């Protein structure tokens, strides 16, 4: 398998060459598919940031607190821009949030958890940010231009989140106690399989006939992205002093690809469907803010003429 870097995408490939604006004529089903992608990301940005907000008032120093607040504000901004993309396609943000609160939209597996210790934040965030960056670099070449423009803004900020997460992990690994380093090690081992699952099931023989792929809204296959991500992130963790057990992930020189411990797909599916450890907490948090802000939305948005 030849692995191209995520930003080396052959855009002359027919399914990626035809681009669309909001006002373009779109093939049957395209508009709904683009709205689904944008709304899915809007929700992930807003829910995905909640585990971090919990730690703002527990950050151990002032600069760390500032960086954490900046990250949280960035993520909410990402929610706004991707929600705008969905809204223009006919899916209002109120509906995106209500569908989630009322259980009609599922969250991807990684958004069902929280952090149990400060030392867990760095490695977990580093795994999450690097996978987001790999995904966005590919999606950047997608066919819906308002979404790719939104990603251009988002990518600049994600690079800050990545470096912030790396710095947090570095601090623990270099200045932490043995116990703290152990927690970072455990965080890596806990979150790696979750992120491997986050990229989705192994490619089926028919992934090229998936409408999202045919429309060029999905640019790369799950396995391509997963391999690119491992190539990028495993050396970073090794460099930080995290031990990467070859059972978890190891590069096969002969086949030129990564072997990794297969995630527990049954458990992953169960969590997505039934909810993971923090699902109910995040759901009720969003429900409460929707309700709290209802007056503002009704009065202010209806005043718009």
């Amino acid at each position, binding site marked *: 398998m030849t692995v191209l870097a995520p930003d080396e995408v052959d855009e002359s490939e027919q399914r990626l060459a035809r681009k669309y604006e909001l*006002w*373009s*004529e779109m093939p049957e089903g395209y508009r709904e598919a683009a709205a689904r992608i944008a709304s899915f990301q809007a929700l992930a940005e807003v829910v995905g940031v909640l585990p971090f907000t919990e730690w703002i008032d527990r950050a151990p120093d002032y600069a760390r607190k500032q960086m954490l607040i900046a990250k949280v*504000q*960035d993520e909410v*901004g990402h929610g*706004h*821009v991707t*929600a*705008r993309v969905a*809204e*223009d396609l006919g899916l209002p*943000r109120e509906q995106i949030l209500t569908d989630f609160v009322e259980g009609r939209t599922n969250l991807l597996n990684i958004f069902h958890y929280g952090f149990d210790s400060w030392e867990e934040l760095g490695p977990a965030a580093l795994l999450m940010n690097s996978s987001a960056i790999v995904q966005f670099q590919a999606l950047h070449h997608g066919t819906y231009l*308002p979404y790719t*423009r*939104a990603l251009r*803004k988002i990518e*600049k*900020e994600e690079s*800050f989140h990545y470096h912030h997460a790396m710095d947090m992990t570095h601090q623990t690994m270099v200045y932490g106690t043995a116990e703290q380093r152990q927690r970072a090690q455990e965080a890596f081992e806990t979150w790696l399989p979750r992120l491997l699952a986050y990229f989705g099931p192994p490619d089926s023989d028919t992934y090229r006939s998936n409408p999202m792929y045919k429309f060029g809204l999905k640019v790369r296959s799950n396995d391509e992205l997963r391999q690119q991500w491992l190539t990028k992130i495993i050396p970073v963790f090794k460099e930080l002093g995290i031990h990467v057990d070859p059972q978890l992930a190891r590069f096969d020189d002969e086949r030129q690809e990564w072997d990794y411990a297969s995630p527990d797909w049954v458990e992953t599916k169960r969590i997505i469907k039934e909810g993971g450890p923090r699902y109910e907490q995040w759901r009720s948090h969003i429900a409460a803010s929707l309700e709290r802000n209802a007056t503002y939305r009704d*009065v*202010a*948005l*209806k*005043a*718009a*003429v």
Partner: protein
Amino acid sequence: MRRGGDADVYEVFARFGDDPQEPIRWLGSVRSGDPELAWHAAKEIYTRREDCTLLWVAQRAAMVLSEPSDAEALRSPSRLSYRVPAFPGRHRRARMKAAALAAAEASS
């Protein structure tokens, strides 16, 4: 052409950096019930990294926007070929060629 629609959508335009020659760019949109709040939302959402030196918002409903059917009317060089720099030269050469042809015919 068409009117923008949605009264609670504001399009966001900005310039980054100190070069005043740099064109103002369209960045995307925000949703707001009020123009000033729309400006603040745009500031918080779109100017988080680069140095922004100019920020405008415009209510989408107040804008007039081109549509695909306007493309032909907007394409100057192909529709109005007599405006392009090479046209006067071609015009002159055609005239000289015609004159030379007429002179040759007259002398034969």
